[in-house]
């Protein structure tokens, strides 16, 4: 029966229809719309490259949101991966209660994207919120986290780093898959803990680091909920991420054409970075006989 092509196509049919209607068609439409002026009333007018020209030469807000988004990703992706790998490494031991800790650290990842957490986060970083209360007890003057152009983005960075659980769970599984014999061999050769980590662990888990990196980058470039809720893009656009700009253009001002152009620039950025990573992977991602197992 599994040879039946008809049945195979029948079962995959929903996916074919769905991917065409909800992904590939919108994907192409968004590209086409990016060359139009479309204020939602009436029909789109073709204006060539005007949207892109305006963006590059004439739109400070675009450059601002691009800078904000890129620098955010440059901080959050390494921070998240470093914390995730560190905690996974600490957990990778004959520990009692490993399941408890793993669940506790994964919890923020599950809840972190919710509006409820954003509301609470806003509250922690109030002028008199918990963070400043703690700073006060160690003798540091309160910081106007949400009101300052300089510090506001750090509240979002903190929230995102707090959600390192997904990457950690994946790292932990990879670490548990490193053959014990390699460590025993390194031990006999007198390798220190740090040398073992550097020369045994790291090379073997590079495919997983690579995977996590790609996923986190795609993720971070689309950050919306937290800056929309906590800082509302401000103050002075210091947390005005690309995703918020696109949302505002599309659903606040109904500039569908310009919003499409903006989203394509964001898409290109993600593709370009992923492309560079894929290209560079042949220099630092280590595939051995483990390839089948790790991928």
């Amino acid at each position: 029966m599994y040879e039946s092509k008809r049945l195979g196509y029948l079962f995959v049919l929903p996916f074919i229809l769905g991917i065409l209607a909800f992904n590939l068609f919108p994907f192409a439409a968004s590209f086409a719309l990016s060359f139009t002026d479309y204020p939602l009333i009436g029909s789109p007018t073709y204006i060539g490259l005007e949207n892109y020209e305006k963006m590059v030469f004439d739109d400070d807000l675009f450059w601002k949101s691009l800078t904000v988004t890129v620098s955010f990703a440059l901080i959050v992706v390494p921070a998240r991966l470093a914390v995730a790998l560190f905690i996974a490494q600490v957990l990778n031991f004959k520990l009692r209660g490993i399941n408890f800790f793993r669940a506790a650290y994964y919890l923020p990842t599950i809840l972190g994207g919710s509006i409820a957490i954003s509301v609470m986060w806003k509250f922690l970083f109030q002028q008199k919120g918990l963070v400043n209360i703690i700073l006060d007890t160690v003798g540091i003057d309160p910081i106007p986290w949400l009101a300052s152009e300089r510090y506001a983005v750090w509240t979002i960075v903190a929230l995102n780093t707090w959600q390192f659980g997904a990457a950690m769970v994946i790292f932990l599984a990879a670490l548990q898959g490193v053959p014990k014999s390699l460590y025993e061999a390194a031990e006999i050769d007198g390798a220190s803990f740090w040398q073992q980590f550097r020369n045994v662990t790291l090379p073997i888990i590079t495919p997983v680091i690579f995977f996590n990196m790609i996923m986190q980058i795609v993720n971070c470039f689309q950050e919306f909920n937290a800056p929309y809720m906590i800082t509302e893009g401000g103050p002075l656009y210091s947390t005005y991420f690309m995703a918020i700009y696109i949302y505002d253009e599309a659903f606040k001002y109904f500039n569908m054409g310009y919003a499409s152009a903006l989203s394509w620039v964001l898409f290109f950025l993600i593709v370009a970075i992923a492309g560079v990573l894929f290209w560079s992977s042949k220099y630092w991602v280590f595939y051995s006989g483990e390839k089948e197992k790790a991928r």
Partner: protein
Amino acid sequence: MSSETIATALPKTRIPSNAEVLRTQRRERISLTLRYLILGSVGLLMLYPLFWLLGASFKSNQEIFTTIWFLPRDLTQLLDFSAYYNGWMTRTEFTFATYFLNSFLIVIPRVIVTLISCTLVAYSFARFEYPGKKLLFSIMIGTMLLPPIVLRVPQYLMFKELGMIDTYWPLILPSAFAVDTFFTFLVVQFLRGTPRDMEEAAIIDGCNALQLLWHIVVPLLKPALISVALFQFIWTMNDFIGPLIYISTVEKYPVSLALKMSMDVSGEVEWANIIAISIVALLPSLTVFFLAQRYFIEGATSSGIKG
């Protein structure tokens, strides 16, 4: 170097001396203590804010903004649920009962259609052979990297054309077509890892495809399907930008939009109320997570590693 070559390179008679054993044991004890210290303090750092907020929902504004300890000074305040009551009633004409009901009206259908469509499509990918399967499969992988943000505008225009704005259809319908490819992929990977013996036996016994799917494949897939249902439940509860774009009538707001509204209406003054209702908003997800955290971790792990 493989482990065998290392093993043969060692002198076979070498037995560790007592001193050596003691040294290793001591090193392991130190390492263990250090690990617990790190795990404990990082855990405290991560989870304390949540406890503090829980306590804050029982405090007066004055007390919230002065104390670092999470319990209120006067412990009898813990019996006073007025912040919860006020938060639940909101300052609008609707209570959170309406908003929770709305959320479930989105979440439950969406979870069901996700399960059905993912199972069908994953079954096709994992068991059948047909021309074009490889291409379809790579498209599926590709869309996992496609940021949803690029699709928002045309999708909105499409649902507008279909007259579905301000209904729950745009939030549910796509899932009925297995476009949440992360889930389909998770089920495919799981199914590929399960043996076909039972199915082959059932085919010989004359089962048709649907019987086979329902009686044999679905029971096998149960752990993976539970992971899918749980993730979809929580992600849909958390979803904010979807309802923000498509739902405009307050009466139809799900919890996430209602929270944003409560915040805008009374946020800066009635802190305890807002915190209280935020905690309540997290309860469904929290309950699901604690009842089934094993499935979350397994789901997250398998999709990543096998991915």
